[in-house]
């Protein structure tokens, strides 16, 4: 069973902190919500897929089943791991809170 720690959608300050330093280390408050986001079921888990080693990554979701390939998510291509972390953070923020992450 995944984590049930609630994410407060009004804490955009923590989202700002993540966007500024997506690789961490994070403050304790931010790490709690990052842990919540990373503690997902295997099936459907977002992962990065190497397109060009050390240069370009696509986004995909794991099948969660041995022998079954992951599913690529079209037109999600990143040239830095940091950008990929930011994009997945936004996706999960909305998935968990129900509120799109709006940062100025």
């Amino acid at each position, binding site marked *: 069973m995944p984590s049930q720690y609630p994410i407060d959608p009004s804490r955009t300050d923590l989202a700002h902190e993540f966007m500024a330093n997506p690789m961490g280390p994070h403050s304790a408050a931010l790490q709690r919500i990052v842990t919540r986001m990373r503690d997902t079921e295997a099936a459907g888990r977002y992962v990065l897929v*190497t397109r060009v080693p050390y240069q370009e990554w696509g986004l995909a979701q794991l099948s969660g089943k041995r022998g079954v390939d992951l599913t690529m998510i079209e037109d999600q291509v990143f040239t830095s791991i940091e950008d990929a972390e930011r994009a997945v953070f936004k996706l999960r923020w909305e998935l968990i809170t129900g509120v799109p992450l709006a940062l100025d």
Partner: protein
Amino acid sequence: MLEKKIAGYSDEISVAPGERIRFMVSCEAGVDRYQADIVRLISGDRQPGGPGYRDELLPTSVSGEYHGRTQETYCGSYAIVPHGPAFAGLADLGLQAAIFPTLPSLRRACVIAKMDVEAGRGFALWTDPAQGLVLQLGDGAGGVQEFALGRPLVAREWYLVSATYDSAVGEVRLHQELLNSYARDESSGAATHTSAATAAVSCEAPLLIAAASRGEARGKPVGEMIFNGRIERPVVASRVLDAGDIEALRHGPVAPNLRSDICAAWDFGQAFETDDIIDISPNRAHGRLVNLPIRAVRGSNWTGDELSFHHAPDQYAAIHFLDDSLYDCEWEPDFELEIPADTPSGLYAARLRSGDQEDHITFVVRPPRELSERADAGDRATASLALLIPTASYMAYGNARGAIEVGNELLANHLTVISPEMRYLNRHPDYGNSMYDDHNDGTGVCYSSRLRPLINIRPTHPWLWQLSADMHIVEWLESQDIAFDVITDEDMHQDGVALLERYSCVMTCSHPEYYSTPMWDALHAFTQRGGRLMYMGGNGFYWRVAYRDDKPGAMEMRRTEDGSRSWASEPGEYYMAFTGEYGGLWWRAGRTPQSLVGNGFIAQGFDHSSYFRRTADSRDPRAAFIFEGVDDEIIGDFGLIGGGAAGLELDSASRAYGTPPHALVVATSEQHTDAYIRVNEDIGHMLLSIGGQDDPGVHADVVFFETPRGGAVFSTGSIGWSSALFHNDHDNNISRITRNVLNRFLDPTPLA
């Protein structure tokens, strides 16, 4: 996007000059030809800022272009009993066994079969997802008659099952009985059927247990429809067995009144340390196991009074069969090499290339073998330093599926990056699993083998772990212009301390976690006889493993009691079938890593690595040589894995756990993140303060101590240490300290 399509393995992992090694390769569609060369590996890490990949061609007869082909792998474990007089002339039939199905709802699975499919002769007993027990009898005309019990089996429960055929009246009886007692059990029951025509029960096909077969490959029946779960005391009789017979045959010897009518009754509670299954009937129709099913597991009658199979073999007379276990791919060799006489010892690979495809089948050329009649064995080493390649740990981690199956995001505290190699592994469940994975039925993987492609044990694998991380050590040794021989765990297991004693200094790799008893004994004896040991990693000497002399390339391990682990052995299954030794943590067998190397596993984390700070002990004159030319207080605040030398898995010193009383802790790491958590075997009560920021125990210690007869041990306490050696073109304090220690350890002057 690059898709991996080529992989191979070798029959040997360590060969001396003059010995032969064979390479087996399989290519997927699109790779029709490939170039193969033998290369000496120098460097592997291709990440930006890393040393990159480098090798050196060894001119051999191997170099050339080869035809690419796909080679089939048949995984899954079962038993084969050859046809023989024991099974001749069968007309009536009695079958029985105790079974513990772990995936009864997956698909039809075969418990026992002796069937000539083409002729339609023989018998097969199945479990069916909807019907429970099913008996098939040949019709003698290329087909079968099928009789079902009609009640599905419950997973992970013991059943006594039986089937009989009475040819005189054409009656088939099926029986399945749940051995646990549950209210509302609907899975137990019996059925009686009448056969339409006389069945053709007798055939000359081999008998299979836990599989059926439609044909042979590589000289033996290919097992299909493999039964996942445990089977105990299967019996084949030439007459109808009644309830009293069946009960009498479940355990113990075959009673005199039954001996004339029993074709075979296999007692899996014998010959645990072999592939043999023993028939205790007068026919002695013994069989052989294929692909390492798990032995020394609890049977249906296990009481819990004895915890070792040696003390109550009759309670461990079951074998756990698995549809995805694998010992040997048994591919056809593509090329072979006789190691040229003058080949320097080193880490080598058969480098395969085809367009953008590549693979490195890595092996070791050990120094020339000593001749047994020579008394001066010492002169067969070709350097004063030996690099000890942890092949046991490579086998434990080989084909780890965690990243692609689950994602290791929570461990890493970063998104999981899936490489083409990981997708390739996921396309190949037939290549078997690592000891970190579960079998398809959820059972933890307790056997590994190197006679199959180990996809992540490659010098360039992007997950810097084991071999790919150890390449940092090889690269550093090359950069320092230091002569070194290369030897492996398996060499040490076989040759003992005599292999090590040829060297002034033995250096480990970054994560020598898995040790057999002979390996532990050899390394310990080396340190006690004046040898110098540099332990260049973390979480070493942790799990106990076993090899079998008659099963080259296979290894066993049980994850018992506790320890940082991805699965746990069942209670009562803590003893290894290969040797009978108690498995699990070496700590639990009274041999702590701290007593061997001064520190032992204390915490792990995989997001950011940290640094070491020098201690007061580092000013001790005994430690002066270590820090010669190093003025820094902070050591190793850089590195190619996580940005620091103190990272991944950390070992600390502990007098209570056996660190020698005179040991010096010359540096200690600090400021680990909360993703670093203390190992569970060192946690009593569970407290909120278990992460690196709250728990001061979460740190690595660099330890030095002298050993008897002028020897010494230097332990870095961290897997991350070697990832820092390359920094600033090897001009850094980790590199300097490592070099200082190595220089002193190669100097014959006694240390103490």
